[in-house]
């Protein structure tokens, strides 16, 4: 397969970027999208050019490191698929593929297609954890959880923090990410203990990072590679109101 790649190139965070066009021949339809970029980079290196910087790690759709805006869709044209799991057979021979980095003020470009997503890390630091003593595994039956609830909590925990929700949102809002991270704890007894502080602090941090506000367009759900539901956003909103109204005044 032959493609024309139109890729965003930006030397560093402060540099002015722009698109560069690369014709790429003899691409195997079995290649993953990232393998196709590796193949391009090999040719660039051999030709003495600077290879395209893009993020990748596990290449099996679980780490959330990869994330490219491909032809107007975060993670490309397939639903519920990360960039690394996208294959070139999903494109047509001779197609022009436009590849851009995630665009959001909270995700500044580091180089080319790599963006700084440490804003997500800071949201997690603000409350995306449970405080518990280490030691032996506790007796499982001491915390009964219904199968339905544990399944729902696990659905929320499927979020890999790739940032596609922000990239897909017309407002660059991080509500789906924050909601998934809050919901995975809010539904289970272990997470309920710090529930009110968690939602309050994580939402505060999300706002401080400069993400946009949610207007319930649900583009995030449409482009989430893990199919996280916007129902979790409603759950987070419920938790947030409850925290604002019912939480104790801090000393």
């Amino acid at each position, binding site marked *: 397969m032959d493609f024309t790649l139109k890729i965003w190139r930006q030397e560093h965070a402060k540099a002015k970027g722009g698109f560069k066009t690369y014709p790429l021949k003899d691409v195997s339809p079995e290649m993953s999208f990232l393998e196709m970029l590796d193949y391009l980079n090999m040719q660039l290196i051999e030709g003495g050019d600077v290879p395209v910087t893009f993020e990748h790690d596990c290449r099996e759709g679980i780490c959330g490191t990869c994330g490219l805006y491909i032809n107007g869709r975060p993670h490309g044209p397939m639903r519920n698929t990360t960039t690394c799991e996208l294959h070139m057979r999903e494109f047509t021979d001779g197609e022009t593929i*436009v590849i*851009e980095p995630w*665009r959001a003020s909270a995700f500044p470009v580091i180089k080319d297609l790599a963006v700084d997503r440490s804003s997500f890390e800071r949201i997690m630091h603000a409350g995306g954890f449970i405080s518990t003593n280490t030691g032996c595994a506790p007796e499982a039956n001491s915390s009964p959880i219904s199968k339905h609830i544990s399944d729902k909590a696990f659905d929320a925990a499927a979020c890999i923090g790739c940032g596609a929700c922000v990239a897909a949102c017309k407002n*660059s809002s991080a509500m789906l990410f924050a909601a998934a991270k809050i919901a995975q704890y809010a539904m289970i007894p272990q997470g309920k203990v710090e529930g009110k502080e968690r939602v309050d602090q994580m939402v505060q941090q999300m706002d401080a990072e400069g993400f946009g506000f949610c207007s*319930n367009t649900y583009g995030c759900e449409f482009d989430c590679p893990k199919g996280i539901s916007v*129902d979790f956003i409603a759950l987070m*909103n419920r938790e947030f109101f409850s925290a604002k109204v019912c939480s104790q005044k801090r000393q």
Partner: protein
Amino acid sequence: MALAGIFLMLFLVFHLATNLLMLAGDGGAAFGNAVEFLTTNPAVKIMEYVLFAGFLIHILLGVALQWQNYRARPVKYHKALKTETSRFSRFMFHTGVIIFIFLVIHLVNFFFVKLGWVSIPGEAGEVADRYDFFGMAEVMFSNAWYVAGYILAFVFLGFHLKHAFQSSFQSLGLNHTRYTPAIKVIGTIYALAISVGFSVIPLYFYFIH
């Protein structure tokens, strides 16, 4: 945003119910009685201020929201987002601006006349006094362009409400596997009812009355 929106949605129902009295075929007698009650009752007077506050909060929050959302993506995408989300939801600010323009014209044409800030429309004697909204409607809705503009504004309001209704429930966290589908259906019916209900009035005055 959602709370102010819900308040305004309730107001629209009340406003429509009052306006539909104009279609009673009694020369505006029933509507006149309603207007008299609404312009003289002190509780309504207080609610008028609450209503203005509701509008103001909703508009200011809408502008602030749009501004922050604009700032959140300083570099736009080269390829526009290909998404299958509802068009109604993507153009809330745009429909909001159209509704705001309509609101200003609407206030100048009716509310400001009541306050005496704007002179009574039409020829002398066509409108009895500055509380004769039925007479004002007769004058205004005899103009085809005014009727067309009025209906167009309500089409956009319908688009706005189609998303707004279910969105307000989501924003307040009122989401439930059993009830949310029903809320979406009710929202569509509500948006359609408001849009059609308000549009029937100018058509009645232009073609029938």
